[in-house]
């Protein structure tokens, strides 16, 4: 268990770490690392590996718009949160879906190429879902930090190059 945790911590800070370097940093051998990562994947602990992208720095292909959309839903005897969620996750435009405590039920993160794109998706695909009673759309204006990584934060090392 402790091994799994160690490897998970390393993958969390850098998923591109090579097996050899994970082995060196944990003191496990490479075969053991491979095996543990395969287990983490098979057991549904690790679901994937993705880059964290600052879209403003991606110059070539136009706009990238994100919106956080709050959803209120009405449940009935036959339909629970799970059922609604199962339908919403199918849309490729929805990059995350979470159930919340508090004022609204779900929040989804929607990504698209323009505000129009995103609004249209909400009004044509999400709002009409029978259980959805209300949607509130918040467009993301700026991202400062994502999954622990601060954008534009390249700390210069101002230490003396040699010190006692």
């Amino acid at each position, binding site marked *: 268990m402790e091994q799994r945790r160690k490897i998970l911590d390393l993958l969390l800070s*850098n998923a591109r770490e090579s097996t050899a370097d994970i082995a*060196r*940093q*944990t*003191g496990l051998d490479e075969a053991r690392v491979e095996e543990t990562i395969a287990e983490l994947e098979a057991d549904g602990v690790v679901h994937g590996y993705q880059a964290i992208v600052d879209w403003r720095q991606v110059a070539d292909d136009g706009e990238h718009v994100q919106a956080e959309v709050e959803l209120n839903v009405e449940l009935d005897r036959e339909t629970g949160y799970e059922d609604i969620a199962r339908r919403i996750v199918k849309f490729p435009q929805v990059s995350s879906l979470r159930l919340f405590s508090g004022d609204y039920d779900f929040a989804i993160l929607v990504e698209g190429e323009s505000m129009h794109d995103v609004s249209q998706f909400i009004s044509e695909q999400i709002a009409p879902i029978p259980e959805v009673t209300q949607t509130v759309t918040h467009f993301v204006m700026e991202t400062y930090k994502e999954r622990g990584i601060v954008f534009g934060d390249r700390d210069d*090392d101002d230490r003396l*190059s*040699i*010190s*006692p």
Partner: protein
Amino acid sequence: MRIADRVERVPPSGIRRFFELAEEKDDVISLGVGEPDFSAPWAARTAAIDSLERGRTSYTANRGMRDLRTQIADHVGRYDLEYDPDEEILVTTGASEALDVAMRAFVDPGDRVAVHQPSYISYVPGVVFAGGEPLAVPTRPENDFELTYEDLANAGAENAELLMLCYPNNPTGATMSRSELAEVAEFAVEHDLMVLSDEIYAALTYEGDHTSIATFPEMRERTVVFNGFSKAYAMTGLRLGYALGPPEAIRAMNRIHQYSMLSAPTTAQYAALEALRSCDDEVVEMRNQYDRRRRFVLSRFEEMGLDCFEAKGAFYAFPHCGGDDERFAEELLRQQNVAVVPGSIFGVGGEGHLRISYATGLDDLRTAMNRIEAFVDAR
């Protein structure tokens, strides 16, 4: 200009020369840095900022803010150390000031101070500035640079009045377990040595728990323990440390401190107070990162065939490079743009070794290790 003899008796630090060499080149990756690559925990930084906003810019009590001393007393309980915040703790401007004050408070002209080596470069000058006579006690690679009873006896340390001790050690990264330290305590009691124990790297112990020599029988009354915020809390620039000792010892140190320093920096005391109150998690996270890098560096040395004992503390590895370590370090810098510190700078026993600091991000460490490997292969 009139310069006192005691200054002339201490040569400029060997670190300086390497610093200048490294500064001449671009794109150098330095594994020669003796301080954390992290910044102080954010909560500690905001506590310092808040204290400034509230106008807390006066001196504090000579011994440091009472709240801080209370927190320190509480904190060192984790090492089974018990000190009274009113009588037995002195807050200082870095462990450096505490060490300097201690030398002046406990060393009379001509007193011998045993300093095990290789060791942190300030101890010997500290002894000399206080008018004492340093007595080098070499530690040995075959003992992983731990200090043994035999090392002390071989060096004639029974004739010394004081012993300067530092584990986890800079530059070797060596630590000492309870049973190994027991021998040193035995020697100190047998020969009535006072012990100055620099435990600034205590929180950066990766295997087993840190043991303080002050916890052995008959040791508390003859020991002053030094610690600080520079390493564990990544607060080097804030300059804050402390000394723990019996009331007479702290009173003596405070006599000098009250005239020479008045009090440690107030802003830093506020940061330290918050660090102790709420930053344990950050310390653990930094320690975990150092530990991964430590393992990484040790495995890379093994792969490239550089003999290196398993350093278990601080953020240093101390591989054996054979032959002339200064030349090795100079050529490594010239040919591969990697700066390290030659072991001989840290005193006898350091020859033929390099101090490798892993207080550097893993990406740089990876590149630096590849360059060292290329250098070693080409030799």
